[in-house]
């Protein structure tokens, strides 16, 4: 089991890198950058736009941009430099030190973008100056021995400091981050936490509702097969399965918010939220959740109800249920101890998949209903090309999918003694 999980995680890491490459590549297919938006404002100068573009490295080759992004994510990152190099930092030739070529072969592979120091000098972007300045200062101010010490273990023994034109940039610990959003000018993590929590809230409420309603209904339908209740439920299921979520959302919005002001028209909290007391705050959020949660629930309800019913019928037909009945066990015990457990097992996988779709599953609905969640955020980010934000949402979605699948598989193993991963 342990080896299985480790294996899954290793594969998952590889998959995530693949997914990030795919996402990044696809996003780069579109021309233009986020900052093109600024250009239509006569009050914003071209220089300002160029500066912003340079600040986020959008003028560099795509692979450098990708590395920059990846570097942000790693806990032991290679500090990005403005010359585009990740492993090799260009040392400013310190006075008095012999600048000789190092013997290693790798050193000769000077990074492609490193040939643009002139440009970097003429357009000094903010982070660059900030990062390189202290480094050069320490190098110049401290004696060679101390300087070597700051270069970590790679530096040759003091006394004969073979100062290279490039020095190896050792990975050092840093907190992983998702970069900075172009639009919000804030760390991506800060931007997405709240929408993420909102989306989780909506989806968890909807999933809980769906399961709480669908399971009893499914069991009821199975136990009353071909009776009126079952028939009504399956008729409703078919209609519910076929009613597009966004259409239902539009109609509910129009009926309850547009025409009658009965339910709030969107968002998650009222403007007066912070004037409210604790109890009212809860009610306020619940009030705002009604329309989106109902739409999501109805969407999932129909399918789950039908599957539960099918599974339950299947199990009830099995011989061990017949045996249990033949033993004279009370009907309730037969159904809830013997049948139900086995009927629910296959549903566990579905639960895993639902978990996987937490982030992107309700995206369209969020956009249509103006719910302040990930879908809404990603929509604006994609349209305006706020790349760090798009990548973060994309990757979070992918991670959740991986996790959901893993959880589904593990849950299945826990629930079903016949399955084991060894």
């Amino acid at each position, binding site marked *: 089991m342990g*080896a299985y999980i*480790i*294996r899954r995680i290793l594969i998952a890491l590889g998959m995530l890198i693949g997914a990030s490459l795919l996402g990044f590549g696809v996003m780069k297919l579109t021309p233009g950058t986020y900052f093109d938006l600024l250009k239509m404002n006569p009050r914003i100068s071209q220089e300002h736009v160029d500066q912003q573009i340079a600040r986020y490295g959008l003028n560099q080759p795509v692979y450098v941009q990708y590395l920059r992004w990846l570097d942000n994510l790693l806990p032991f990152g290679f500090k990005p430099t403005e010359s585009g190099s990740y492993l090799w930092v260009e040392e400013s030739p310190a006075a008095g030190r012999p600048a000789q070529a190092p013997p290693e072969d790798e050193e000769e592979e000077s990074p492609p973008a490193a040939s643009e120091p002139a440009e970097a000098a003429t357009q000094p972007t903010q982070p660059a100056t900030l990062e390189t300045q202290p480094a050069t200062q320490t190098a110049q101010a401290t004696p060679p021995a101390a300087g070597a010490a700051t270069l970590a273990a790679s530096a040759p023994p003091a006394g004969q400091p073979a100062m290279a034109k490039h020095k190896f940039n050792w990975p050092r610990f840093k907190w992983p981050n998702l970069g900075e959003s172009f639009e919000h000018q804030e760390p991506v993590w800060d931007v997405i936490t709240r929408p993420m929590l909102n989306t989780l809230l909506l989806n968890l409420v909807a999933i809980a509702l769906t399961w709480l309603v669908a399971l009893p209904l499914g069991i009821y339908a199975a136990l009353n097969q071909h009776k009126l209740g079952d028939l009504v439920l399956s008729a409703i299921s078919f209609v519910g399965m076929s009613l597009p979520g966004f259409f239902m959302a539009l109609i509910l919005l129009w009926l309850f918010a547009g025409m009658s002001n009965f339910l709030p028209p969107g968002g998650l909290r009222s403007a007066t939220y912070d004037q409210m007391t604790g109890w009212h705050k809860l009610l306020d959020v619940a009030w705002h959740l009604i329309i989106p949660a109902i739409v999501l629930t109805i969407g999932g309800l129909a399918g789950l109800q039908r599957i539960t019913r099918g599974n339950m019928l299947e199990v009830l037909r099995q011989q061990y249920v017949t045996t249990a009945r033949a033993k004279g066990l009370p009907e309730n015990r037969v159904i809830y101890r013997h049948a139900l457990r086995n009927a629910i097992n296959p549903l566990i996988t579905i639960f895993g998949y639902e978990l996987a779709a937490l982030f992107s599953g309700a995206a369209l609905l969020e956009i249509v209903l103006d719910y302040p969640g990930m879908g809404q955020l990603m929509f604006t980010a994609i349209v305006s090309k706020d790349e760090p934000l798009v990548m973060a949402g994309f990757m979070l979605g992918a991670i959740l999918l991986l996790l959901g699948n893993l959880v589904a598989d593990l849950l299945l193993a826990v629930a079903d003694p016949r399955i084991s991963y*060894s």
Partner: protein
Amino acid sequence: MIDAAAPLLTVSDLRTWFPIRRGVFSRVHAYVRAVDGVDFTVSRGKTLGLVGESGSGKTTVGRTLLRLIPKTTGQVFFDGQDVMALGSGELRRLRRRMQIVFQDPFGSLNPRMTVGSIITEPMLVHGLYDRRERKRRAAELLERVGLAPEHVNRYPHEFSGGQRQRIGIARALSVQPDFIVCDEPVSALDVSIQGQILNLLSDIQDELGLSYLFIAHNLAVVEQFADDVAVMYLGRIVETASRQDIYAHPTHPYTEALLSAVPIPDPTLERRHVRLAGEVPSPVNPPAGCAFHPRCPLTRKLAQDADVKETTTIFSDSQPVRIMARCTAERPSLRPLADNPAHCHACLMRQ
């Protein structure tokens, strides 16, 4: 051109192992040794019966020598050609001469094809005959195997199991092969039908001079059909002899045990009933030495015999059993009997 006395098919040291992968990097952890060093020959116009319990690897042998499953090591010579070394084109040509009839009459016919196209397909892919001739031959073959020629346009699901097996035979015959692997062709059929199919196979053999490798899981079927018999246990052949020899003088304890299970039509005859202890061990981790030793009835005898010196004690069915030390250490090889060189067996205690 080729010596008629030379065997049609020679199999030497054939092994088919299936890897088992596990762990973080899914390295090969172990192998299922389905076939683990098998030698036999099939003579022209004769039938070799290959007998063994389920899981002994006999079906794998049949499929490996037709190259339906990749071998691990070993050689197979068919009419002087090294089957395992053939390129894909030569292999296809050879396939005309080697055919197979499957055990399961329901799974071996493509449910989406008519009987006619099932039978004509081998001819088609080998480019034999033109379209009309193929149709004519299909009808002819159907008739030969006891079905009506107009059945060519029907689908397999409209036939009974015995009828389907006849279709399978007709398909095998369609390219006029020299050799057919009959992979338990009757074990899925009712007893009443078994005889009819066996008779059909036998008639066809007489008529066309075919050779068969006849795979079966009990000796009863083989008794009336095979010229020679090979007994397999856990991927190895433990005894091979002519039909008469094996039924008259089984030498390997496993063969004896199998034979004792065969019902004897003559009530006056009495056969000592040998009951095998335990179950077939896993082919992943076969017992060292003689693979049969944990279940071997001879060990029971050994418990009483005092003259065998080197013994060791194993636990079989939780009973301590004394067995010959060599049985657990040395892998027995197939050796001819002193009095009958055509009769080989692989039992250390009897050699």
